[in-house]
């Protein structure tokens, strides 16, 4: 066993952990329901992962405790409707980490190295987003949030590393259902997700990487760039979607309906649909906790014209996504590019609505329009993801 060096779904050791955890839940469901409640068993499993396998368990513990205390204090003393301050308080560790990420890997400064060492915790960005969502959703309810529920939600091992981003209410309703949720049906569904995830991540993504990406040499030709761009897009999709499916599958095994993250994204006809199909949980998060409040604020204050407000809010939202990925130029530009796509598409929809007809395609056959849209969207995404990869910057 590689102690303190096992990332979820990456090292083979983790799969032993899954097997043991699933067995524990099954045994508990059959025989020990009265002895240990579901939420405590879940906490125990997560805790043992963090203590035994997770890198930097102490830092991780500090992070969770910091976030819980911050949450408690905010809920008790901060009665204002404005959510900017709470968001900043909760996001501080993440902002700190992303800032440190700007420094080059081979920096000589021992301060930066040790600071990086302390704050770079797996899944930090995802944990922070989950906690911000939790704060906003629950800020008007008086129900107490128990630490064990908070811990289970934020440190839920399957979605710890790169999502999917769950919501506290949804997650906790599954936890409350507890052992009732562990059914043969959900288990089989989990198994289907799991094998699909294995196929995506460890076979298809791995093959794309080993057989194509690693053999491409940058000779500056357009062929190289195009080949790299498309292959990287598929590689990223299969790797990421595969990971999400594994997380969903593992969640299903132990009775948690982890939300779907990817749904045939390359069939999207426009940016709006794309974000419902590609990393959906992040798209939803950004919409609910960033776009909505900021756009509502603009609208209430009547800043600029309607279409300008929409464009600015959209652009800011996707720029935030870029920054969230890391304070690196290629992440930020790629986020902005996605913002630009959405702004353009939104402007086009606006124009169509005003004119009462399709201002670009006119009366073209709808099937043909759909095909053209898919091709256009696919290539736009490919380019933005290529930018994201950092290969051209």
């Amino acid at each position, binding site marked *: 066993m590689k102690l303190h060096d096992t990332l979820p779904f990456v090292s083979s050791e983790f799969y032993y952990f899954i097997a043991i955890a699933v067995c524990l839940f099954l045994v508990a469901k059959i025989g020990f329901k009265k002895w240990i409640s579901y939420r405590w068993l879940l906490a125990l499993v997560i805790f043992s992962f963090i203590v035994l396998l997770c890198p930097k368990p102490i830092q991780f513990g500090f992070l969770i405790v910091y976030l819980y205390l911050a949450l408690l204090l905010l809920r008790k003393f901060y009665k204002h409707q404005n959510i900017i301050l709470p968001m900043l308080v909760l996001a501080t560790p993440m902002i700190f980490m992303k800032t440190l990420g700007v420094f080059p890997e081979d920096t000589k400064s021992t301060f930066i190295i040790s600071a990086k060492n302390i704050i770079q915790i797996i899944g930090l960005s995802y944990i922070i987003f989950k906690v911000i969502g939790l704060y906003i959703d629950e800020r008007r309810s008086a129900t107490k949030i128990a630490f064990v529920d908070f811990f289970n939600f934020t440190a839920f091992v399957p979605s710890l590393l790169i999502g999917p981003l769950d919501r506290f209410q949804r997650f906790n309703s599954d936890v409350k259902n507890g052992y009732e949720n562990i059914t043969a049906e959900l288990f089989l569904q989990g198994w289907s997700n799991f*094998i699909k995830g294995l*196929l995506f991540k*460890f*076979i*298809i993504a*791995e*093959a794309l990487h*080993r*057989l194509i990406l690693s*053999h491409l040499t940058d000779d500056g030709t357009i062929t190289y760039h195009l080949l790299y761009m498309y292959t990287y897009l598929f590689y990223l999709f299969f790797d990421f979607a595969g990971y999400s499916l594994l997380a969903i599958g593992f969640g299903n095994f132990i009775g948690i309906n982890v939300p779907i993250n990817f749904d045939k994204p390359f069939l999207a006809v426009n940016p709006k649909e794309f974000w419902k199909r590609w990393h959906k949980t992040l798209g939803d998060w950004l919409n609910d906790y960033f776009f909505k409040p900021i756009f509502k604020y603009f609208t209430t204050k009547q800043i600029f014209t309607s279409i300008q407000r929409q464009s600015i809010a959209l652009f800011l939202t996707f720029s935030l996504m870029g920054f969230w990925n890391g304070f690196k130029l290629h992440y930020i530009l790629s986020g902005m590019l996605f913002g630009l796509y959405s702004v353009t598409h939104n402007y086009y929809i606006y124009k169509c609505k005003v004119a009462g007809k399709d201002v670009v395609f006119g009366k073209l056959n709808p099937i043909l329009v759909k095909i053209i849209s898919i091709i256009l969207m696919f290539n736009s995404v490919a380019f933005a993801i290529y930018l994201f990869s950092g290969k051209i910057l």
Partner: protein
Amino acid sequence: MSISKQIIKNTLIYFLLIFGYMYLYLVDIDQILFPQENMEVKSKIDFVYQQF
């Protein structure tokens, strides 16, 4: 989804899983497709000269 379609889909998934495992992890398909010189194997760990 119809039953037969689901069966075919899962057959394909299992087939690719096993086949991919064999050719990506058991043997390196790279070596079959792109023949190369026998590699030089080294130790990943540098042992420091130590006394007991």
